[in-house]
């Protein structure tokens, strides 16, 4: 592992790619069936988040705001605007759950969400998600933890054939589905929390709902504690796993930093074999492992001569960095949105918390970028190869169907990055 810089060395952010905790919280609530995320803050916070997610997923996004004004910012402890918001929402739709989460504004004024929540006579989960701390990943993680703490019924009974999957925020809807299917192949009934794979996977529904459609139901969440196996993916999901284990200490817990590439998928497969008592995984798993091995060999010629800049949330960087470096790519720079213990697990020459101005200053260090659509301008400016991943990705369609996980996704991902590297080199010859 290379040098890790955890603190930015300048007063401001220039071309930032860090996203806010409230957005992460809203996204997690959208992984709950028929949920209405209610962002407690000025209406702009919600509006920005709504437009951002609508453009990323190309789907309507259900979300509401408590619309704090200058008057309520000063005079109201949150009670008035939250209670009124819940009344107004439930007048029009009947969500199964209201996901109340705060913003920088309401954290600055110090609203007591827990106190207000106790006044609301409607199913509601609250979470503090100020946007001057953490980021998208931690907002998602904190919300998952809050859902577990406030909804899951404690129990001592366990079902050995039931598994709970806690995926980090950078996993796309299809990746969550692939992960669920993988676990199912080993004989488990599996529930993901949150579960974007059935809500924001881009399915054409019967009608356009004003609420999230798909996702884990509130009933399923309340009964999660009898699962024999808890599987957390990404460092940001460790606290959620711990919260779930508190509900039933007899659950067994498997934590994976990520599930990208050969060794990480091997680790998951062997753990599932052991937990299920099976001798051999199903034939499709065996076949995909061989395909990944072949893809690693096929792509290594190109990747071995490619220096890569990775941009994203810490849990994403750990996974993408691993699968690429297994095929010989050199991650010369990994730029992270925020600090995280995960930064120690990124196989990169240099890891730093920063912004895209940093990436511009170090542009001689890499040939190809794997990052969100804000890196597109950077790639064009300096003629770098580009593979778009992460939030936001506004200019391409199909983000929710992009799978890089496990043996199968790893094979596709390595081919895509190697092809992008070759395109980049071919284009460069023309200059």
């Amino acid at each position, binding site marked *: 592992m290379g040098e890790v810089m955890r603190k930015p060395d300048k007063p401001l952010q220039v071309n*930032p790619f860090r996203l806010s905790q409230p957005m992460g919280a809203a996204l997690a609530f959208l992984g709950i069936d028929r949920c209405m995320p209610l962002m407690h803050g000025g209406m*702009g916070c919600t*509006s920005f988040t709504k437009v951002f997610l609508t453009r990323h997923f190309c789907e309507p996004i259900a979300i509401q705001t408590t619309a704090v004004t200058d008057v309520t910012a000063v005079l109201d402890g949150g009670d008035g605007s939250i209670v009124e918001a819940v009344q107004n929402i439930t007048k029009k739709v009947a969500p199964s759950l209201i996901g109340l989460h705060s*913003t920088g*504004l309401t954290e600055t004024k110090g609203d007591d969400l827990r106190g207000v929540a106790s006044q609301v006579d409607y199913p509601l989960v609250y979470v503090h998600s100020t946007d*001057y701390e953490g980021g998208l990943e931690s907002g998602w993680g904190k919300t998952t933890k809050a859902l577990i703490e406030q909804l899951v019924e404690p129990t001592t009974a366990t079902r050995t054939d039931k598994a709970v999957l806690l995926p980090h925020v950078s996993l796309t809807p299809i990746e969550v589905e692939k992960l669920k299917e993988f676990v199912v192949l080993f004989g488990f009934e599996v529930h993901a929390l949150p579960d974007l794979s059935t809500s924001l996977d881009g399915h054409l529904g019967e009608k356009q709902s004003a609420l999230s459609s798909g996702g884990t139901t509130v009933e399923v969440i309340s009964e999660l504690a009898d699962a024999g196996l808890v599987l957390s993916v990404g460092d940001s999901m460790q606290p959620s796993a711990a919260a779930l284990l508190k509900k039933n200490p007899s659950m067994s817990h498997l934590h994976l930093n990520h599930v990208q590439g050969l060794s990480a998928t091997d680790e998951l497969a062997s753990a599932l074999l052991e937990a299920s008592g099976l001798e051999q995984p199903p034939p499709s798993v065996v076949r995909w492992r061989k395909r990944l091995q072949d893809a690693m060999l096929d792509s290594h010629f190109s990747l071995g001569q490619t220096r890569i800049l990775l941009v994203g949330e810490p849990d994403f960087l750990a996974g993408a960095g691993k699968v690429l470096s297994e095929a010989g790519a050199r991650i010369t720079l990994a730029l992270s949105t925020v600090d995280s213990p995960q930064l120690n697990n990124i196989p990169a020459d240099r890891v730093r918390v920063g912004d895209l101005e940093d990436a511009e200053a170090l542009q001689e260090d890499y040939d190809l970028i794997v990052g969100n659509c804000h890196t597109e301008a950077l790639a064009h400016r300096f003629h770098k190869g580009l593979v778009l991943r992460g939030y936001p990705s506004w200019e391409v369609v199909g983000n929710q169907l992009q799978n890089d996980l496990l043996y199968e996704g790893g094979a596709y991902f390595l081919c895509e990055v190697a092809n992008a590297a070759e395109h980049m080199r071919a284009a460069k010859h023309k200059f």
Partner: protein
Amino acid sequence: MTRKPKIRDLLDESACTHSPTKKNACNAPTPGATTGGCAFEGSQISLFPYADAAHLVHGPMTCVGASWETRLTHTSWAGRDLTQMGFTTGITTNDVVFGGEEKLRSSIDYIVERYAPEAVFVYSTCVTAMIGDDIDMVCKQAAEAHGIPMVPVHAPGFVGSKNLGSRIAGEAVLTHLVGTQEPETSSPFDINLIGEYNVTGDMWQYTPLLEELGIRVLSTLSGDGRVAHIRSAHRAKLNVIVCAKSLVSLTRKMQERYGTPFISVSFYGKRDTSASILAIAEALGDAELVARTKQLITREETRLAQQLAPYREIFEGKKAVLNTGGNKSWSIASALQDLGFEVVATSVKKATEADKEKAREYLGEAGILMTNPGQEQAKVIDQTGADLLLAGGRSLFTAIKKKIAFADVNQEKKKSYGGYAGLLNLAEDLKNALQNPVFKNVARRAPWEK
């Protein structure tokens, strides 16, 4: 604190047409039953197109993290386009507790040193307004230190709507920039374009025509704008408000302060474009200019008629339902009519009283003005036998269900529909929408469904 805008004054705009009736456009939002942006967003939209200025957002991550690089406000500025960059102090818990002024100060220094902007706009946000950072003081000191204008913009999101934010932004420009420099040259036909942001290059669809007539765009607020030009805006002979109610306070004050008259125009559709160009010429009060303008309009309309002829054949007799907001409820309707569509219905849900009048005027007595389009539009399509729905993405399902063509008019657009040339873009897009079989194909039932 005399230089800060008075929110109450800005809310109570005497030049606003709805002001006497106290309509709801400027009222407080309802918790749990509202959508739309905040004052901060409105101020951004108004000022961001100044590509030679840096736009520094003093606040936490949400404010700019989710909003930079979103609008295609093109610029001809040869330097690095600062519009497409995000600058934020990205304040943290530490700043909330101890204050963020020092961070703001060093951020401004950093930007001036590295990016050499012509000015820095400093936006306050909910959190930094709550903790009471004195951005006026920091801006004043930084302006003295660096010798370029620093413009504090006091539009934290909680003070109100996007519209109010635009007014506050206009106020900031008026207070800190307008009148601070003299233009190099002056002409009798100098105008300012106010409220034109050059989204997707809209402005460039008609400014060449103005130039051809000898009308000079002295400054803009703020499409393809320059800080130096807006500083000399007080020498213009006319303020032209383009499709924007929000900046009427600014133009009224410029009239009071500098005697600059103002007119309000729209460049969507053939009739509006022609009417607007003529209105500018007439307001400048030169008979010869007016005559030249009429000739140019005839020439352009003739050319456009030829170019549109093949499209008109396709659109003739086709009926359109329009579900959008504000002035678009009539301006796009007018453009559609210019293309040969019959506009059978439009939404007036978010329109002002004046917008409703205009919509009625354009659609005629038989036209349906929908006050609750979400519920009405499906029925209206059935009743009228409409062929095309133009609306925001949420209405896509209505189109699929009714198996009619759909065009998204609310998404961040990429092509210009402005001026005469923009009408051709719109025609091409609508032709593609009408000819695309996707809606019929998608609506196909699965073989296992009854």
